[in-house]
């Protein structure tokens, strides 16, 4: 077995041997699942009651064809902080609990440890994504079907979206790794992730719907890039397409770019420094 394969197995064992991963997974699945059920029921109820005031073929201003994708994509558009948190914690907990000492004793080539964390978080991020999509697709489709809206599960576009959503969550896992190595303070990393994803980016993206230059910058924000990659999002649905979006593959590259950029800067700074 190579040193890299060994480091990868160790990193996986590290994450699975503490409670954090399943706590985050439960939060993710419960959060996006409940939101998907709630929004699917809400839109379904609007669509069948007389309260729907939009043009024909729409529900609450949303084209019918977009209803199912937006509901399913809640897994990423709302759930993406969770794999990022898992990724950042996989790095910051090593600093916080001083476990970098045993880690680097076992694997003295530090780049190998970071590469192993990337691989493990890509896999776990994808699994988090798969679990979140099971929740949003399962509960969302049930909710839509209950009101006679087509969940579009027979369409290849839907399944392509699901596949891209899994990829987005895998990438968020490594964005988290990059952020963790860039900001090794555990509290700092968590605050940055929560503040940015729940506050800063939503405001910037809302502003991007009204201001041109903000739109140009806004679509390169990590959350916007992620939504572009997935191809549907509650945020873009709300801003009704006024903000321009990247192509899906461009969104993927931008998101990967953030992960690589953070990781490389971190690898050259905090990761290389003395472990005292």
């Amino acid at each position, binding site marked *: *077995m190579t*040193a890299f394969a*060994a*480091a990868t*197995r*160790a*990193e996986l*064992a*590290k994450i699975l*041997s*503490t*409670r*954090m991963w399943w706590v985050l997974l439960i939060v993710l699945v419960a959060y996006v699942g409940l939101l998907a059920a709630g929004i699917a029921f809400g839109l379904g109820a609007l669509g069948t009651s007389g309260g729907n005031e939009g043009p024909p073929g729409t529900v609450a201003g949303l084209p019918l064809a977009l209803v199912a994708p937006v509901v399913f994509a809640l897994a990423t558009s709302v759930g993406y902080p969770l794999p990022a948190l898992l990724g950042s914690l996989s790095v910051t*907990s090593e600093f916080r*609990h*001083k*476990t970098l*000492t*045993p*880690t*680097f*004793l*076992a*694997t*003295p*080539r530090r780049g190998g440890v970071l590469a192993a964390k990337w691989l493990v978080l890509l896999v776990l991020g994808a699994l988090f994504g798969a679990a979140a999509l099971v929740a949003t697709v399962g509960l969302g489709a049930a909710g839509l079907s209950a009101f006679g809206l087509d969940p579009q599960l027979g369409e290849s576009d839907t399944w392509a979206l699901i596949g891209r959503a899994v990829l987005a969550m895998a990438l968020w896992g490594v964005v988290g790794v990059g952020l963790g190595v860039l900001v090794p303070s555990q509290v700092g990393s968590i605050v940055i992730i929560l503040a940015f994803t729940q506050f800063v980016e939503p405001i910037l993206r809302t502003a991007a719907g009204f201001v041109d230059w903000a739109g140009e910058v806004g679509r390169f924000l990590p959350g916007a890039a992620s939504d572009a990659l997935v191809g549907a999002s509650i945020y873009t649905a709300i801003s009704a397409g006024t903000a321009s979006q990247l192509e899906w593959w461009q969104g993927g590259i931008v998101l990967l770019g953030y992960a690589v950029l953070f990781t490389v800067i971190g690898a050259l700074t905090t990761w290389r420094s*003395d*472990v*005292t």
Partner: protein
Amino acid sequence: MPTGVPIEFEGVTKRFGTVDAVSDLTATVLPGRVTGFLGPNGAGKTTTLRMLLGLVTPTRGRATIGGSVYRDLDRPFATVGAALEAASFHPGRSAREHLRVLALGSRIDPARVDVVLEAVGLTQYSRRRVAGYSLGMRQRLGLAAALLGDPGVLVLDEPINGLDPEGIKWIRSFLRSLADEGRTVLVSSHLLTEVEQTVDEVLIVAKGRLVHSGSLASLEATAAPRVLTDAPNRPALLGVLRAEGLPAEEGPDGILVSGAEPGRIGHAAFAAGVELSLLAPQRQVSGLEDAFLTLVGEEGAL
């Protein structure tokens, strides 16, 4: 049976900001002995060990294990086992999981986990989360990690700290048996008394510099002589000693002078015309401890 290889420090220097934590340290640690790495807290012991293990990058010089720097070792745990500090465990992980993670990462057969847990007496607590461990149990877990790869070289930083008397007795015989098997054993401590029954060789550092290396017996030989003296006219004798540049300490039984033989003090007093009422060389209660404290200076008494 794994065979020990020497540890070599070649002009190792570490500068933190403007302070030299370790200055130009050169020493060799040989297999088959227990070597004590001694010095007061803050003398640079831990920094030196961390440089040896590739955790801290030396500003100058290098430290090698059997001729290789740590990061070039293919399966480092099979060559060197290290226990550095009792706090390096994730509190949410059990002892068994901690060791399993290390075994996986360092390509050591995970079956060794049970062997080393048994060796340090932690088997019955091994599934408990480390958060509930006492300092002594953490020390044992650290030692278990060091033994995981059955290495020929062991590097242990303050392993006796926090152990109960039974644990101290146990680790002393344990270190002795490891050295008797031909392994290289380097043990740091800030208390000579803690390890003097265990170590064969000593490396003593103070303020980042190596101030003594050699056998334990060689340390005793460096102990400064101490003489108890007195005179009917004490102030006159104190004046003579001051003129001679000898450190003198006034006590209830007389004046304790260090760093000079009785003959020199008697001669100085005679030449100055001061009558002596007492001139007695002191038997050292612990020659080793005194030698150690003399070498490391004031802060060694902490």
